[in-house]
């Protein structure tokens, strides 16, 4: 029983994709791992559009058909003046069923030897000599304290673990997307196509998505940046107005809300005895808002570092810093570029977006791709053209 065990090598706070990936990798590396999740079920509620790329999943495993609600091969962009541009994606994507996906990730972690406990809410850290040495919290009404060599903050957008340890993880209002999504049915959608609606009237400082789950069902959601949320109109109102206009006949199966940190990765991802992964470390792609794969990636890299540190001289900040370095090497540089691109494109007025759509429509359909789209979008900012070239072509 986890309650009897005095100390674990690692305690992971949060059972999302980042936490479960850390737990699995660390357990495979021979560490004893306890994962604590406050909710009663792993993977529920699903606060997510559930879109991932095939290549992203393949970093970790062969995509399992039971996770996949739709396979996506095409993309449609709708400009403010309702100009539509479509093209085939060079790389396929999926709409997942994250309830099953997240659940399987947690199960992989347990199969590797990690202990997963739900209904376990962490409300503070054990700190000795300025070093994190464990967590405290409540499990089904009962208080607990548990020691660990490393505590991993995988506690998502609402992360407090880092801040308890003195790491600065507060997200600025302008870098937080206020999000809402409804899974609706009774509509007609193209089952293999991502749809994006771009306009201040649909989602200021963000975008509205229609992600199909079959022919008659879709995740329809949007995010608006905090700067616009300040004007008083809630994300919910934008979505209700869109659905009323576009899909008045839709039946709503579920509504979820959530925050998406479209920020730079936190400055410090580690300190003595602590590491941050996933949304808690702001690993979400600032342009797309995608955080599943990047969160898992950070979990993997953090675990690799943790295994080395504990086989070496211990969980000192110095021994954990290689994780930060690995993150910046693998994803972090592009992350910063995406952040710079976001800072520009989220400010576009509807006229700018219409012009970009017109420019992009002039390209023959079989020659369209995301690189060309973003190149047109940032044309007036030559410095960003370099960023666009780097993130989309890897040069």
């Amino acid at each position, binding site marked *: 029983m986890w309650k009897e065990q005095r100390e674990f090598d690692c305690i992971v706070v949060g059972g999302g994709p980042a936490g479960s990936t850390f737990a699995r990798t660390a357990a495979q590396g021979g560490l004893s791992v306890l994962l604590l999740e406050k909710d009663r079920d792993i993977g529920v509620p699903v606060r997510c559009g559930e879109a991932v790329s095939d290549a992203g999943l393949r970093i970790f495993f062969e995509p399992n058909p039971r996770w996949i609600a739709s396979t996506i091969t095409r993309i449609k962009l709708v400009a403010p003046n309702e100009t539509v541009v479509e093209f085939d994606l060079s790389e396929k994507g999926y709409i997942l069923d994250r309830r099953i996906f997240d659940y399987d990730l947690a199960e992989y972690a347990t199969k590797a030897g990690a202990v997963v406990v739900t209904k376990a809410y962490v409300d503070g850290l054990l700190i000795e000599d300025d070093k994190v040495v464990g967590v405290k919290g409540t499990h089904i009404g009962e208080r607990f304290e548990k020691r660990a060599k490393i505590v991993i903050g995988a506690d998502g957008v*609402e992360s407090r673990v880092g801040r308890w340890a003195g790491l600065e993880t507060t997200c600025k209002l302008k870098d937080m997307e206020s999000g809402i999504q409804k899974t609706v049915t009774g509509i007609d959608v193209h089952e293999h196509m991502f749809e994006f609606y771009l306009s201040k009237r649909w989602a200021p400082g963000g975008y509205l998505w229609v992600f199909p789950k079959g022919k008659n069902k879709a995740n329809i959601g949007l995010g608006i940046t905090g*700067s616009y949320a300040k004007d008083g109109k809630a994300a919910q109102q934008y979505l209700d107005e869109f659905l009323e206009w576009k899909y008045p006949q839709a039946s709503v199966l579920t509504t979820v809300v959530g925050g998406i940190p479209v920020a730079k990765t936190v400055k410090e991802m580690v300190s003595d005895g602590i590491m941050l992964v996933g949304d808690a470390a702001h690993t979400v792609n600032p342009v797309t808002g995608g955080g599943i794969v990047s969160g898992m990636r950070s979990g993997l890299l953090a675990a690799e570092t943790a295994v080395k540190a504990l086989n070496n001289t211990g969980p000192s900040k110095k021994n954990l810093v290689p994780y930060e370095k690995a993150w910046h090497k693998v994803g972090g540089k592009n992350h910063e570029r995406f952040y710079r691109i976001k800072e520009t494109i989220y400010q576009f007025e509807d006229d700018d977006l219409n012009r970009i759509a017109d420019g992009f429509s002039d390209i023959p359909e079989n020659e369209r791709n995301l690189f060309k789209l973003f190149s047109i979008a940032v044309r007036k900012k030559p410095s960003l053209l370099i960023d666009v070239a780097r993130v989309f072509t890897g040069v």
Partner: protein
Amino acid sequence: MIEVAENKCDFCGCCVGVCPVNCIELKEADIRIDHELCIDCDICVFICPIKVLSQTDPKRTSSSEAA
């Protein structure tokens, strides 16, 4: 003072992520604001996707200083 509309919160954590003083406590189905720590910056009011939070002090306007 920040007030939470009863039974309206979805427990998504968006407000917790932006609170500059980390004074919002969020459990599986419970949200609490530590009013001693709260600095009434109203950022949480702005960001909530379903506008569950409100500032009860009528003197405070939704100023931009907080952003």
